[in-house]
């Protein structure tokens, strides 16, 4: 037996055996006989490792780092014989408190390790914390013994993805969800059969990095409701899954539960994309708390004004200094960790334009962080999606530095489609480009349609139902006198503000939801659906629902029965998209004419065939996709004809002839009532008259030639 000792204690500090540690990796790492702790600070003059027994308010040991334990700007120590399951740790940093120079060291604070992979302190959702606790977000030591059972990322091509955005708690917290563990990762896993039935193949999870739901919590005047940081766009621990979203968080098992969820989703062929928030942290501005970065090295981690205040390009008090090389490496380490350790398939970056700003806040032409992420060998198969704007006025939809890798949330798709749907005139030209994957935005630099993540609704703004039930926002429950939330909703209430008993109003709303679903799932690019829209979910006109842990946020599954036709329409549209590669091109179409079919790849039509009406008064648009040229002719498909009539009157559309030997069949007609509004792909009924069709008022018709 080999009895050689590689690592042995050389020091005794605060009664514990220790030796100089290894600077990499950062964080707390299990090593033979002990734990290696490593943390960066350029400007700290002293640092101590603070050790607690689990849950205890006062530390049992505090180990100052001797000078020889500091390598460059890294403090590192290996501590031996620790009961790793029993301890929590933090750091105490000393240094100048000189805000004008960017320094805010405070040795009275105990700071969380930015690389902590497991955090306690908010172990169960909604349990009011001890506000006086000196160290509320407590780092723990993590284990890597999860058995993945051979799991690996799914690897669905971006062009084939149907993304479904959801909030883990909202998805199953409502009693009607009928799951054993409501509001948790485990609860979401119980709903995988539903996701399969709907047909989505990627879930985009709103923030799951540890956050504090009690951040800025307050009691709403009038209602008495405790308003929370419910969505979680304010990170406390970037490497740690949120414990309060785990049924096993009280046992410290959130890592395992989340990995089990990922493994189960992968088994079902569903990818996992995380909504990640690197633009700011939970530390707020100069009045905010010390969680981590502020006390570790404020000047390095935040973008500061010349006077030492926090720039607020995030709208949340501070801005992470993402293109500082140390911070850049931190972001890269974090994403690599989630990709490697949690098998995550992709990331959506909240307010991603901030990631392209320099240390003074100016936008960079070639941001090192974005380039590093694009070319990183570990992230090379991960989808990278930018919310290509920030709260500082930088709007980069169509111009986000992409490096051939980045896709973008296409806000122009949302705005144009909403305006077209509500009957605004003069939108036909814009709709033509949106349905083609926005070549005006992503064609000039060869990015192609998959650069466009198409969405009509997301967590920000109205739900789809509310887009057709409210002209204006109704955010009074947020306690900000209806001043929060956007005003550019491009919504239309169909004739009555809010809930209505008028059957005509409700029928029109239902039709508009189907119209929207059809446009989203027909458009070239990558569709993103908001969870619950397929069930007609309402937030009663609230378009900024960030703070409600109530049924204003939770999905009410009883709507599944009442809105069965909506679910059916969504699921069949998804199946139709999957069945037809002509809807999922890899390049923007050019109008090239096929020698086989004699048809252009795409042709534009109106009420007259071969004559599109792009005039300012137009509310119609129709197009024909040549199936023989699907995916450059590599995936022969049916030819499709699609007509949108957003006029308030029904209009007759003359049809182009179907390809020789085929006839038009009706896949969908939102002007018809269920069950004649949509059919199973492949079993569509034949169209009675082959040369024309009456498209109902505010309706969509989809024909298949076969």
């Amino acid at each position: 037996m080999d009895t050689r000792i590689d690592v042995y204690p050389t020091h005794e500090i605060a009664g514990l055996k220790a030796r100089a540690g290894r600077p990499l990796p950062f964080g707390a790492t299990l090593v033979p006989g002990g734990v290696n702790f490593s943390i960066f600070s350029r400007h700290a003059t002293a640092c101590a490792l603070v050790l607690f027994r689990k849950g205890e308010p006062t530390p049992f040991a505090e180990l100052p780092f001797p000078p020889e334990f500091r390598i460059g700007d890294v403090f590192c120590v290996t501590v031996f014989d620790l009961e790793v399951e029993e301890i929590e740790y933090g750091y105490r940093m000393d240094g100048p408190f000189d805000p004008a120079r960017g320094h805010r060291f405070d040795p009275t604070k105990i700071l969380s390790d930015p690389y902590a992979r497991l955090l306690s302190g908010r172990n169960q959702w909604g349990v009011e914390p001890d506000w006086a606790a000196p160290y509320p977000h407590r780092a723990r030591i993590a284990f890597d013994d999860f058995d993945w059972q051979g799991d690996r990322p799914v690897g669905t091509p971006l062009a084939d993805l149907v993304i479904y955005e959801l909030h883990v708690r909202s998805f199953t917290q409502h009693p009607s969800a009928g799951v054993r563990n409501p509001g948790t990762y485990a609860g979401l896993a119980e709903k995988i059969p539903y996701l399969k039935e709907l047909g989505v193949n990627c879930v985009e999870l709103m923030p799951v990095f540890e956050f504090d739901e009690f951040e800025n919590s307050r009691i709403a005047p009038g209602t008495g409701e405790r308003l929370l940081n419910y969505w979680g766009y304010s990170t406390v621990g970037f490497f740690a899954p949120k414990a309060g979203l785990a049924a096993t968080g009280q046992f410290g098992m959130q890592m395992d539960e989340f990995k089990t969820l990922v493994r189960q989703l992968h088994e079902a062929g569903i990818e996992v994309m995380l909504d990640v928030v690197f633009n700011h942290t939970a530390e707020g501005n100069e009045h905010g708390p010390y969680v981590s970065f502020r006390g570790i090295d404020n000047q390095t981690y935040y973008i500061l004004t010349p006077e030492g205040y926090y720039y607020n390009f995030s709208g949340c008090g501070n801005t992470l200094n993402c293109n500082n090389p140390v911070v850049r490496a931190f972001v890269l380490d974090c994403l690599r960790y989630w990709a490697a350790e949690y098998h995550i398939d992709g990331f959506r970056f909240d307010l991603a334009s901030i990631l392209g700003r320099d240390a003074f806040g100016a936008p960079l032409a070639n941001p090192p962080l974005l380039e590093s992420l694009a070319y990183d060998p570990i992230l090379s198969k991960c989808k990278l999606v930018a919310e290509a704007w920030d709260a500082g006025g930088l709007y980069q939809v169509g111009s986000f530095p992409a490096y051939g890798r980045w896709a973008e949330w296409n806000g122009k798709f949302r705005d144009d489609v909403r305006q077209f749907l509500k009957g605004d005139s003069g939108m036909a030209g814009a709709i033509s480009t949106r349905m083609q994957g926005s070549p005006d935005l992503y064609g000039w630099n060869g990015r192609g349609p998959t650069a466009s993540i198409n969405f009509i609704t997301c967590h920000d703004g109205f739900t789809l139902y509310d887009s057709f039930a409210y002209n204006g926002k109704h955010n009074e429950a947020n306690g900000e006198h209806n001043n929060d939330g956007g005003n550019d909703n491009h919504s239309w209430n169909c004739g009555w503000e809010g809930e209505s008993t008028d059957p005509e109003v409700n029928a029109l709303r239902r039709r508009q939801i189907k119209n929207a679903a059809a446009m989203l799932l027909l458009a070239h690019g990558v569709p993103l659906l908001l969870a619950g829209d397929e069930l007609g979910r309402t937030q009663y006109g609230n378009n900024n629902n960030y703070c409600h842990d109530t049924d204003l946020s939770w999905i009410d599954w009883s709507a599944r029965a009442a809105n069965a036709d909506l679910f059916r329409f969504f699921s069949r549209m998804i199946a139709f998209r999957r069945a037809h590669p002509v809807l999922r091109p890899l390049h923007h179409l050019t109008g090239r004419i096929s020698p086989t079919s004699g048809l252009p790849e795409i042709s534009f039509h109106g009420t007259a065939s071969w004559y599109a009406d792009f005039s300012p008064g137009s509310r119609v648009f129709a197009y024909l996709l040549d199936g023989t040229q699907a995916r450059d002719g590599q995936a022969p498909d049916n030819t499709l004809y699609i007509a949108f009539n957003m006029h308030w009157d029904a209009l007759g559309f003359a049809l182009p002839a179907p390809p020789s030997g085929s006839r038009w069949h009706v896949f969908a007609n939102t002007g018809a009532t269920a069950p004649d509004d949509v059919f199973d792909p492949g079993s569509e009924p034949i169209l009675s008259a082959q040369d024309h069709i009456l498209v109902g008022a505010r309706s969509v018709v989809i024909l298949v030639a076969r």
Partner: protein
Amino acid sequence: MALTAKLEIVNNVAKIALTGRLDASTANQFRELIEQAAAQKVKAAALLLGDLEYMASAGLRILVFARQKMGVAVKIYVVAPQDLVRETIEISGFSQAVILLPAYDATVIEG
């Protein structure tokens, strides 16, 4: 409540009965019994958890340790866990490492 842990080996099957609470402070008792059982080269292990009220992450991690220590050929049965314990094992993914049984079944376990 502390942990009581007992090991007996019958028909080349290690039966480990746990009573009380299994957490970081008591996990070593469980770990030692696993090591003793593994040293006996048993063909299966049955963890009798009917009287175990609570299992923290430290205890769950010993299930992984048991799987590693005994090898893949040795079947590990978790017998009659209380609801909270069983559910924690299932949703944290540890059920992949063991076989959950509602009661001791000699036909299945002792073969």
